[in-house]
């Protein structure tokens, strides 16, 4: 079905590939930056005559629009009419993988050339510090070079949604090496089990970014960087996570785990939450994650269990209060104020949760008890109001009893008035 849907698009692409070069070949040849070569009589680029598909790709990219042509990277003579003349020195042909970063850097490390585009010129330097760059220098050609992520001829701007490095496409681009199904797998096959890409997709970050389109969730580059792509070292994980989870990191640094970490042997974020397959931050982790290191029945597990009980208790109490509000709203009673107060309780609970990172039972207790207290108060006040409704009905019965008496008296008075002589 997917193939069937893609078919018309493929036809359109093929047609475009067939016609665009013919239509555009003469009037708009590529040329040096900032000039209109059709007007200035600059040399024509004839490479597309033999390489039409490459030319179509190239013209989709940003480099053709900025006035570069095939010779900018490949050398040779673009205006030559014969293959021999065109491929004459200084013709470079297809650059070797290990030469590609340096070739790109010949422009992209040039500060004077990059500044007008507001593109940083340090990407090559960053690349050389990355795992990719370090291994390439050592002769490992299996690592990513510029073209693996940015494309070869069709290099698009980073903010172009069709670009392979556009934020939304980053997980797929990294996933091409870090977990994509092996070549020959059927279309739509899941990534390799246990690979970073598969784990990211299954984790809360990937769920949020890919499934819920939450753009504030991180992609690969958010934690690893892009050109200087390097896994954060053990001591640096809390710094990376703390860029977004500042509160949790703050409490973590106050706690005994961070102290142990500074002394060289302590857990950081990923120990409990995982790295690529990140689990939803939930009190249930206090059961599973803590028990991974601490002995059953140990003092530490009691602390974890205590914090969990406090948070769960407050959460349940808030749930009861919500149910009471729903009951009252159905009657109807005015519940907006109660809802606002319950928000306060919820805020206290939200404040209490990250304090578990400091393992500070006292502070967790203080906030959880506040949340619980507010929720209990709301619940009992609503119960009071529901009781008032019952009293209203009792009042109505009493009222009718009294009214009945009054009516009976009136009926007697009326009878006497009728019997009155002369009446």
């Amino acid at each position: 079905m997917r193939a069937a849907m893609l078919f018309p698009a493929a036809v359109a692409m093929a047609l475009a590939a067939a016609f665009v070069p013919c239509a555009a070949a003469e009037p708009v040849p590529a040329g040096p930056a900032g000039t209109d070569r059709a007007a200035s009589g600059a040399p024509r680029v004839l490479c597309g005559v033999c390489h039409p598909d490459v030319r179509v790709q190239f013209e989709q990219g940003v480099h053709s629009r900025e006035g570069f042509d095939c010779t900018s990277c490949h050398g040779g003579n673009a205006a030559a009419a014969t293959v021999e003349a065109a491929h004459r020195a200084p013709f470079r042909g297809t650059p070797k993988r290990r030469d590609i970063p340096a070739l790109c850097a010949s422009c992209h490390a040039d500060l004077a050339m990059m500044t007008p585009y507001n593109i940083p010129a340090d990407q090559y330097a960053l690349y050389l510090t990355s795992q990719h760059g370090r291994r390439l220098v050592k002769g490992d050609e299996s690592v990513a070079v510029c073209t693996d992520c940015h494309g070869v001829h069709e290099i698009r701007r980073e903010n172009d949604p069709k670009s392979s490095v556009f934020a939304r496409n980053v997980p797929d681009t990294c996933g091409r090496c870090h977990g994509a199904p092996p070549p020959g797998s059927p279309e739509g096959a899941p990534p390799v089990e246990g690979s970073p890409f598969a784990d990211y997709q299954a984790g809360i970050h990937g769920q949020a970014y890919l499934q819920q389109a939450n753009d504030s969730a991180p992609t690969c580059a958010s934690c690893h960087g892009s050109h200087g792509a390097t896994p954060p070292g053990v001591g640096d994980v809390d710094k990376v996570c703390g860029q977004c989870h500042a509160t949790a990191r703050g409490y973590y640094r106050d706690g005994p785990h961070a102290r142990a970490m500074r002394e060289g042997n302590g857990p950081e974020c990923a120990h409990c939450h995982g790295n690529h397959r990140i689990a939803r931050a939930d009190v249930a982790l206090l059961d599973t994650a803590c028990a991974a290191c601490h002995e059953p029945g140990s003092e530490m597990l009691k602390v974890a269990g205590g914090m969990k009980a406090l948070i769960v208790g407050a959460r349940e109490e808030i749930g009861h209060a919500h149910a009471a509000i729903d009951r009252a709203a159905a009657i109807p009673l005015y519940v907006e104020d109660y809802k606002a107060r319950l928000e306060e309780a919820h805020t206290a609970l939200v404040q209490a949760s990250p304090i578990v990172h400091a393992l500070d039972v006292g502070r967790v207790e203080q906030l959880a008890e506040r949340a619980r207290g507010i929720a209990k108060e709301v619940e009992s006040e609503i119960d009071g109001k529901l009781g008032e409704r019952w009293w209203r009905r009792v009042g109505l019965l009493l009222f009718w009893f009294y009214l009945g008496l009054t009516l009976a008296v009136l009926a007697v008075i009326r009878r006497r008035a009728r019997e009155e002589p002369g009446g």
Partner: protein
Amino acid sequence: MAPADPTPARRSLAAWLETRFNLTEMLAFLSSFGVFPAELDTTRPFREALREAMRRPLPSYARWPRVLGLLSFLLFLFLVTTGALLAFYYQPTESEAYRAGTAIVRDVTFGWFIHQMHRWSARLLLVMLMVRLWRFFFQGTYKAPREAVWMAAVVTFLAATQADLTGRLLTWTTTGYWTTVRALEVIHALPVLGPVLMFLAGGTTPDSLFLTRFYVLHIAMLPAMLLALFYLHFNGVRRVGLSHAPSESRATGETARVQMINMIILAALVFGGLVTLVTLAPTPFEPAADPALTPQGMRPPWYLLAPHAIIEMTPTMLPRWAGGLVVEAILLLILVLPFLDTSAGRGVRERRVAVAIGIVILAIWLFLTWQGYSLEVRR
């Protein structure tokens, strides 16, 4: 008038007051609102005049079907009383109206009771006035010499709808606000009358000043107008006498005293009914009005649904005021009905055609009301 011959032997409070006020005239004035059934001889001392009046046999009063006028006035009195209590706490500004309204219902002791009493009394009053008009029509009560009584009843109903409409906005709740907006759209489509009313209200959109004007109309001008209309009505009834169906015997032998007791029983029953409704069927809480957010399914109040249907169902080739003109023509016809139907008979058998027309009109009105209820506003 000179005080009646004071007898020094009887030193009662009534006698003391009698020498300083004309109590007979005061009570006679009250009888013009239907709360005292008999006529008083204002030239005689109070006790004497009262005793005489109480013993006088009267045509039946404070009994079906002549209770509707009296019930309406009783409800009006409830509305004035509860309205005054509500006004102690209410603040007619855009920012405070809703807060004040919820505070009355939630925080003020028995505020919910007063507020709901006011609401239910208003609903019942409108229904009562409407039913009364239909009774007048089907029993031929509008015929000479009761043309003015009929016209007073029609205008009373119209004034009461306006009092209801102005009151709906005061709560500044979503329904109150948007019902008013829908009602204003209907009124705006009435040629001449619509623009004049809109001019008096000071615009076509309910804003803060609009709310203040509605408040003044609601608590001062319309109640005064209703009071005057009730006075006109009961005064007219007293002058021309209660109407009686031809089959009914005029003298029931009931004295005014019995009628007074009947009236008190009636008032007690109305009060009991209201308290029951208020306790068992209170109006739900609603969110505050947001002028920038139109909720779906907002309609004009029920009495404007038929005019709403007529105006909205006017063919698009005609101007919008054409429908409004039809509504105005119908209103005028209702008002001058006594002068159009001048035949003498008042019994149902003598006016078969008129009764048939009335039933058809009632059916059409119900149909249009249903139409207006289910109509999507055409824009």
